C-alpha cells in the first residue's frame, strides 16, 4: 500500500499536487464499498463537502448522529498531515448500521439506496436540529402558522423540482403538479447516451385502463397524457442509471450492462417551459461505478474529478487515471459478457455555482 501511495504522488507530481487537497482511500469493513464509493463521490462534490465541514465547525458538542459522523470523517480527511493515504471510516459505518437495519449486516448493499438514505437522513437531521433550536427560545411567544420551511443546505445543493403535466383526454384540461427530487432515476437503453435516457424520462405517457387519471374537471377517471419535466435544475444533478431490473423469469434482479455514454459536460433537454435556468451547464464531477454481475454481488468504486484531473477510488486505494479511461465505464455493447464495470450514479455539478 505504501508503494501505491507514493506512486499516486509521483503520478500527480509534487509541484502539481493541489494545495490543501487530500486523496485518502477508505478501508472496507466487509462489503462496505457501496458506502465508500458514495462517500468519495460526495466528498468531491465541492459544495457538499464545504457545507459538511461548515457544519462540523458550527456544531462542536452535539450528540452523535450520522451527520456528525460524516462531518468527522470529512474533517479527518481534510486535516490529514499527509497528502495521500487511507482512513478507516469506522465510526460512520457503526452509526450507519445503528440507524438503518437494512445496512446492519455484511452484505453488499445498493449504492443508490445508500445515497438516497444518506441525503434524506442528513436533511431530516438538519430540519430536526433547526426545529429544536428555533422552538425552544420561542416558547410561548405565539406567532402565526409556521411558514413553508426554509430550505436546508441539502436542499440548496441537491434539490430540484419536477413538474408533471397531465392533460385529460376528455376535457383537454392541463393540470400540473410539482414534486421535489434529490436525484433522477433513469432507465437505460442499449447504445444510448445519458442525454437520451433523460429525454425518455420526460417522454409523454398515456394513462389508460387501470392507470386512469382522476380529472377534477370531469369529476371522474379519464384517459390522460402525462409527462414529467424539470422545472428547477439542482446545483448538483445526481443521475441514477437503473441498471438492476427485476426479471420475473429469474425471480431476481439482473444487471443491465448496456452501453450508456455520459459526456463530461451536460445540459438538459427535458426542462419545462417555465424552468428558471433551463440552459444551466453541468460538469461531470464524480461517478459511482458498479463492477460485477448483480446488485448483491460485485463491487463499487468511484471516479472523481479534482483540480482538473481524474482519480479512481477503490476502497483504500487511490489512483490517478486518464480522462480517456472513463469510456471503459460506459458499459457493454453485447450481452454476452455477464460482468461489467458500468457507471451507476453520475454527479454533475452546475458550472455557475463555482
Amino acid at each position, binding site marked *: 500500500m505504501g508503494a501505491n501511495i507514493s506512486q499516486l504522488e509521483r503520478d500527480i507530481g509534487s509541484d502539481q499536487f493541489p494545495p490543501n487537497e487530500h486523496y485518502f482511500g477508505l478501508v472496507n469493513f466487509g462489503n462496505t464499498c457501496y458506502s465508500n464509493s458514495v462517500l468519495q463521490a460526495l466528498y468531491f462534490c465541492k459544495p457538499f463537502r464545504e457545507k459538511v465541514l461548515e457544519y462540523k465547525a458550527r456544531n462542536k458538542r452535539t450528540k452523535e448522529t450520522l451527520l456528525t459522523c460524516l462531518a468527522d470523517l470529512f474533517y479527518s480527511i481534510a486535516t490529514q498531515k499527509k497528502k495521500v493515504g487511507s482512513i478507516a471510516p469506522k465510526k460512520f459505518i457503526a452509526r450507519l448500521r445503528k440507524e438503518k437495519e437494512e445496512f446492519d449486516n455484511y452484505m453488499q448493499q445498493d449504492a443508490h439506496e445508500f445515497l438516497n438514505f444518506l441525503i434524506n437522513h442528513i436533511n431530516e437531521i438538519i430540519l430536526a436540529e433547526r426545529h429544536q433550536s428555533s422552538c425552544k427560545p420561542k416558547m410561548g411567544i405565539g406567532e402565526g402558522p409556521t411558514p413553508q420551511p426554509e430550505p436546508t443546505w441539502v436542499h440548496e445543493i441537491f434539490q430540484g423540482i419536477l413538474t408533471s*403535466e*397531465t*392533460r385529460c383526454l376528455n376535457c383537454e384540461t*392541463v393540470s400540473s403538479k410539482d414534486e421535489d427530487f434529490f436525484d433522477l432515476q433513469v432507465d437505460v*437503453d442499449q*447504445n*444510448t*447516451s445519458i*442525454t*437520451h435516457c433523460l429525454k425518455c424520462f420526460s417522454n*409523454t405517457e398515456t394513462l389508460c385502463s387501470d392507470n386512469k387519471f382522476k380529472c377534477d374537471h370531469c369529476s371522474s377517471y379519464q384517459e390522460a*397524457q*402525462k*409527462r414529467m419535466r424539470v422545472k428547477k435544475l439542482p446545483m448538483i444533478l445526481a443521475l441514477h442509471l437503473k441498471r438492476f431490473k427485476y426479471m420475473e423469469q429469474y425471480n431476481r434482479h439482473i444487471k443491465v450492462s448496456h*452501453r450508456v*455514454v455520459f*459526456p*463530461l*459536460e*451536460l*445540459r438538459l*433537454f427535458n426542462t419545462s*417551459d417555465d424552468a428558471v435556468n*433551463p*440552459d444551466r*451547464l*453541468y460538469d461531470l464531477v464524480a461517478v459511482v461505478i458498479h463492477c460485477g454481475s448483480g446488485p448483491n454481488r460485485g463491487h463499487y468504486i468511484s471516479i472523481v*474529478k479534482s483540480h*482538473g*484531473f481524474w482519480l479512481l477510488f477503490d476502497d483504500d486505494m487511490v489512483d490517478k487515471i*486518464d*480522462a*480517456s*479511461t472513463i*469510456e*471503459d465505464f460506459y458499459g457493454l*455493447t*453485447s450481452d454476452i459478457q455477464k460482468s461489467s464495470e458500468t457507471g451507476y450514479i453520475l454527479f454533475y455539478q452546475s*458550472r*455557475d455555482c463555482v
Partner: protein
Amino acid sequence: MYKGTNPTCHDFNVVTMTPDSVSLVVGFSTGQIQLIDPIKKELSKLYNEERLIDKTKVTCIRWVPGSTNLFLVSHSSGQLYLYNEELPCGTAPPHYQPFKQGDGYAIHTCKTKSTRNPLYRWVIGSEGCCINEFAFSPCGTCLAVVSQDGFLRVFHYDTMELLGSARSYFGGFLCVCWSPDGRYVVVGGEDDLVTVWSFHERRVVARGQGHRSWVSVVAFDPYTTSYSEQDGTVDFSGGSDDETTQQNHTPNCTLSSGSSERSSVTRNSGNQASNRNSSGSDFNRMNAATCYRLGSVGQDTQLCLWDITEDVLRQPMCSKLRTSGVGGSGTFGVNGLAAGGAYHLNSMGGCVPRCNNVSTTLQTNAVASKDKECLADGNATHFHGMNMHNNSSAPSLTQRLAGLGFGDRKDGSGTHKRNFSLASRGGSTGGDKNNSSYRGSGTSNRTSADDPMRLIGTGACPRFDECPVLEPLICKKIAHERLTALIFREDCFVTACQDGYVYTWARPGKMGLASHIPSSPTTVTAAAVGGGIGPSGTVV
C-alpha cells in the same frame, strides 16, 4: 507494421493519383505517420517515427488540397502539424518559435537552419484539448477544426486567420464536414446533435435532433442535394433586400493567399497553386444548393438522413421557438417548414460539387473508413439520370418517406467480412493511455471568449429554443455496433462500425450498380442485400 499501435485515420492524395500509383498517408494511435503506396506496394516513409514531434494519437490526417507533398495531421494532444512528405523529421525534438497567434489558437514554426518537419504547428483550444477531426472546404481555402472543448473553429488556411467559431450545446464536437457548395459547416458531437453553421453568417443556423447517442460522422450526400439554376448567388425566394450582404457567403477561393512568405513554404509547387485557383473558379461558377441532403451516423448504431432547406437556414436568430403544452415535442420538423415556406426546387441543372476529379477507374478506398475524398469520383452526367424531387405539391416529404424503411439486411454468409485495418475510433485498447492531456479538461487558459457560459445565447451557441430544430427524414438502426464511417457514393453509401464490419447500401434502383465496387486485396466492401433505402430522388 507496428506492434502495440493501430491505424486511426488515412487519406489518399488525389492530386498525384494515377492508375498505377497513389500516395496514402496513415496515422497511428501512438502518433506515428506512414506514407505508403498500396498499388506499388512499396513501403515508403515514416514520420514522427521516434515520436519526437507528438506522442499522442493521430486523430485526423489530410493532404492539403491541391498539393502534391503537403499533409496536415491532428493529434489528441490538441496540435495540428503540417508536414512536407519530402522533408526529414529531424533527429531531435523540434524547437518552435511563435509565428501567429489569435483567439484560442497559436501557430509556430520550427526554429532550425535547414527546413524540417513539421513546417507548422497549430495549437488549438485550451491546453491538451483533443482535436477530433478537421476538414478543408470544398475549394480548399478554409479549414474547419472540431475539438473536445466543444468548439468548431473555421480558419482561412493560408492567412491562418480565425474566421469564425461555434460552441456545442454541451460536450465535445466529434466530427465535421462542409456542404458541397462550401456555404455550411456541419458538426456532430457529444450533445447528440447535428449542428449546422453558416459560413456566411458565422453563426449556428439549425440543430438536428434524432440521434440517441453521440454523433460520430456527418457527411453531405452531394448526389441528392438539389441546386438552383442561377449561377453564383442563390435566389432566396424574395429575400433580395440583403442580397448584397450575400456576396461572400462562400469561402472565397479567389481570396489572395495573404502572407506571401507563407505561401512559398506551403505551396511550393507553382502549378499546384494554379491548380487550386482554377478549381476555385470552378467553384465560384457553381450553383448554390437549395436543399441539402445530410447523413449522420453515431454511437447509437443509427443512420439519420436530413433534408436541410434554405427556408430553415434563412430564419433569423429568434428568441423563442419553443411550443408549449403537453404532447408538443417542443421541436418542429423540417417538413412543416418546407410545406409552408416558398421553397421551390428547380429541375436539375446543376453541376457537381467541386472536388478534385480523379480517374474513376481508381477506386482506392482500400483502407476506407471515413475517406470523404472517395466521393470525388462523382461525375456530372450521373445527375441527370436522377429524377430529383419536385415536391412543390407534396404534402409532407417526411410522411411519404416514413413508410420507407431499410430493407432488412439478410445477415447471411458472405455479405460482410472483417476489415482489420479500420480505424478504432474511441477504442478502449488504444496504446496511449498515459497521455494525461487527452480530452483535457484544463480550464486554465480558457479565455473569456471561449467561456460557454458567455457564449450561450449568442450565434456561436444559441439557446435550444432560439434555433430551428430539425427532425431527421429517416432515422434507422443499421448495425449492432457503434458506427464509425459514412461515405456517400453515386449509387450507394458505405458505412462501417466499431467491430470492423463495412456495409454498402444500394440506393433504390441502383442495386445492380452497387456491386461494381471493386475489391482490391485489402478491400472488404460487400454489396448490401435487401431493399436498401431511398436517399435519392427516385423514390420521392
